[in-house]
């Protein structure tokens, strides 16, 4: 076992949050080591670099690790009444490898769910405290959008203009105008014009299958080049086995298997866990010790609990006219928060967004609607290029019974345990989901759809895995404080999607990265404390 030279900060995980923390801390001058269990993705192999991109997205690049089984992956089971179809990547850039780019800020009310609506929990910080970091992050990734949105407090102009609406967006705008509803161009983590050395989006669409030209702001592109230039020591193929403790009870570093499968140890004054909503509780539980018998930083018993995924669905409208659905950003060019804030008359707490997307690409459409045999082509031709999809995302409230546990029956390639997820929608989520789908259908009908189909609420898409090591003021009801510092281990930080106490009703990447930057500044501001404790 090598005895590593010490770093100021050890970051475990190089995804959306880990990348942001590494870059921010190294901007300040900190010596940072980052351990990433995966590797860089070969951008020439990204699905969208190939004509058969849809097929590649189902096989080697499948979002479910049980299908993909890269060496960096670990097994994840799905149990419960509403099992989750897991969506995650273990690589530099993390799950943003399969990113749509929707990039919303939370609303101020999202931070005060319990106080305002009597459900869930409040966050230990406010929108106003996070807002400066949203702004910094938006500049880093080059967000596209438009300031002046009446659905949130005033803010500075965004770095890049909104993506083109395309025909689907134009039809939906007409529908919103007819209904008299609020709408706004969707903020997207996409460089719609050349920005900081990255090219302007050229509207190839289907962003989640990879963006070979590099306009989709995944963490491997938006943060890592600068972090590496700053001198961050990124160690790929480094599978962390456990966080280590010093004799003083503080985190000392981490033991990991290197690319040759040989155990190594990295030490630092501060340790940051940024492995995502599944990976973080897995690592904390694998780091159980006599001092932390139920897992590191788990005196609350909440590590792995309160797993949230969002209530999500699609409604799909069939239109007489062709909609040019083959081009334009896929994540939805126009969106509404018409039903985002709680309205007691709707019969449930919290709300949802709707975001209009092109229809479906050929293979996925055929698998959905085209029966095999003599009727195949007629069914397919009726819908290809004549559909518009409405993505809908609503708040999933925290429930302790929704959780992740270690699975010692299914191990990874290093003999470390897999995970089991347990998930069931609660009654509020079911009501919200039903109403959400009804409104999605309503918009499409107002846009002129001659028929509408929808996907219902099952299976549960595990695109956003949140809440499994939540932050809060009370050590008995949360795992970290408002700056992501573990209540139980003073120099251990948990800074990723697991720290979110509630889910909001929007895609979470923007909030995850803003929290990460805020955490990084907090670590830096208190650097004297960490040095003296070393």
């Amino acid at each position, binding site marked *: 076992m090598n005895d590593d030279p010490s770093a100021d900060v050890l970051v475990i995980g190089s995804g959306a949050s880990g990348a942001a923390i590494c870059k921010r801390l190294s901007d300040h001058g900190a010596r940072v080591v980052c351990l990433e269990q995966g590797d860089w993705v070969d951008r020439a192999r990204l699905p969208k670099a190939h004509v058969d991109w849809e097929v590649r*997205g189902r*096989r080697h690049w499948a979002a479910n690790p049980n299908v993909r089984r890269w060496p960096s992956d670990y097994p994840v089971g799905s149990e419960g009444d509403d099992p989750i179809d897991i969506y995650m990547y273990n690589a530099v850039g993390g799950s943003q490898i399969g990113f749509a780019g929707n990039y919303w800020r939370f609303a101020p*009310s999202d931070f005060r769910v319990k106080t305002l609506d009597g459900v869930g929990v409040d966050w230990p910080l406010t929108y106003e405290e996070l807002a400066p970091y949203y702004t910094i992050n938006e500049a880093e990734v080059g967000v596209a959008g438009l300031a002046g949105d009446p659905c949130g407090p005033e803010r500075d102009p965004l770095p890049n203009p909104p993506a083109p609406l395309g025909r689907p967006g134009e039809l939906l705008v007409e529908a919103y105008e007819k209904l008299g509803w609020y709408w706004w161009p969707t903020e997207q983590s996409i460089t719609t014009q050349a920005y900081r050395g990255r090219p302007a989006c050229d*509207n190839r669409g289907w962003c989640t299958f990879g963006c070979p030209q590099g306009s989709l702001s995944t963490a491997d592109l938006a943060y890592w080049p600068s972090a590496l230039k700053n001198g961050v020591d990124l160690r790929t193929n480094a599978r962390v086995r456990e966080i280590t403790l010093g004799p003083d009870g503080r985190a000392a570093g981490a033991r990991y298997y290197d690319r040759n499968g040989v155990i190594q140890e990295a030490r630092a004054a501060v340790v940051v866990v940024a492995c995502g909503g599944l990976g973080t509780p897995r690592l904390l539980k694998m780091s159980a010790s006599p001092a932390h018998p139920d897992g590191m930083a788990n005196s609350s018993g909440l590590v792995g609990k309160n797993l949230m995924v969002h209530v999500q669905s699609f409604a799909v409208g069939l239109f007489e006219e062709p909609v040019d659905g083959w081009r334009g950003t896929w994540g939805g060019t126009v969106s509404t928060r018409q039903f*985002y804030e709680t309205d007691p008359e709707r019969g449930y707490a919290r709300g949802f967004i709707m975001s209009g997307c092109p229809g479906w*690409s050929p293979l*996925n459409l055929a698998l959905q609607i085209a029966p*095999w045999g003599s009727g195949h*082509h007629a069914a397919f031709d009726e819908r290809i290029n004549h559909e518009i999809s409405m993505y809908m995302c609503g708040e999933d409230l925290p429930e302790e019974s929704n959780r992740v546990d270690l699975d010692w029956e299914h191990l990874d390639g290093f003999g470390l345990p897999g995970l089991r997820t347990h998930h069931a929608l609660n009654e509020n989520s079911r009501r919200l989901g039903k109403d959400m789908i009804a409104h999605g259908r309503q918009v499409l009908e107002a846009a002129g759809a001659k028929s509408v189909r929808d996907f219902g609420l099952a299976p549960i898409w595990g695109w956003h895995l949140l809440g499994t090591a939540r932050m809060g003021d009370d050590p008995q009801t949360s795992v970290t404080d408002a700056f992501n510092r573990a209540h139980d281990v003073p120099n251990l930080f948990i800074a990723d999607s697991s720290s979110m106490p509630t889910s909001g009703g929007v895609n979470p990447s923007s909030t995850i990265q803003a929290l990460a930057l805020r955490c990084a500044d907090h670590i830096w501001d208190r650097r004297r404390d960490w040095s003296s404790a070393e």
Partner: protein
Amino acid sequence: MAYDRKQAGHKVAQANRPDYRLEVGRAEVPVGEPRVFRVLDAARGATLQAWVATLIPADRGRPDAAALGAAEYIDATVSEVPSLRPALLNALEMVERIARTKSHRTFGDCTPDERERLLREFQRDGDPDAFQMISDFTYEAYYGHPEVLGALEARTGWRGLGPMKGGPMKPFDPSLLARVKSMSPRWRKLSTEREIRA
């Protein structure tokens, strides 16, 4: 990726359930490459070619799935994932048996209508999961093929190769927002100290 795999009858991929939907992740088989059969012998290869041509027949200027190498694509997949071979081989055996019993000839010698009828019987009473596997792989081989994607444009306007190239689009017009910009704020202001710092 993202919306992928969501379809009727979709099962969540599990670590603890043997399933072609899981096993196939290990088989990276580019669509459209020239191939010969590696696992199937000539007779079984012919049965599979007749099968995939029945699943997606020629129509509207588009070839059938066999003409595009779907059978060889399936063979290449099970070549990379041996655990899928038994299901495929058994399915081919069963369909030939049904054809001989019901139509008194090989599956490949049956008329298109007969083949469709026989496959529906196999799908219902034979091995539905094996049928679904062959069907899914056939759809992959077909809709990932440049010839199909190119043909789609002439018939449907869908530019099958467009996602590879992109192109300019009309920029967003902010004047569209005139009505929305006049709306009163649509977010809840936290008016009391209790709300702001509960």
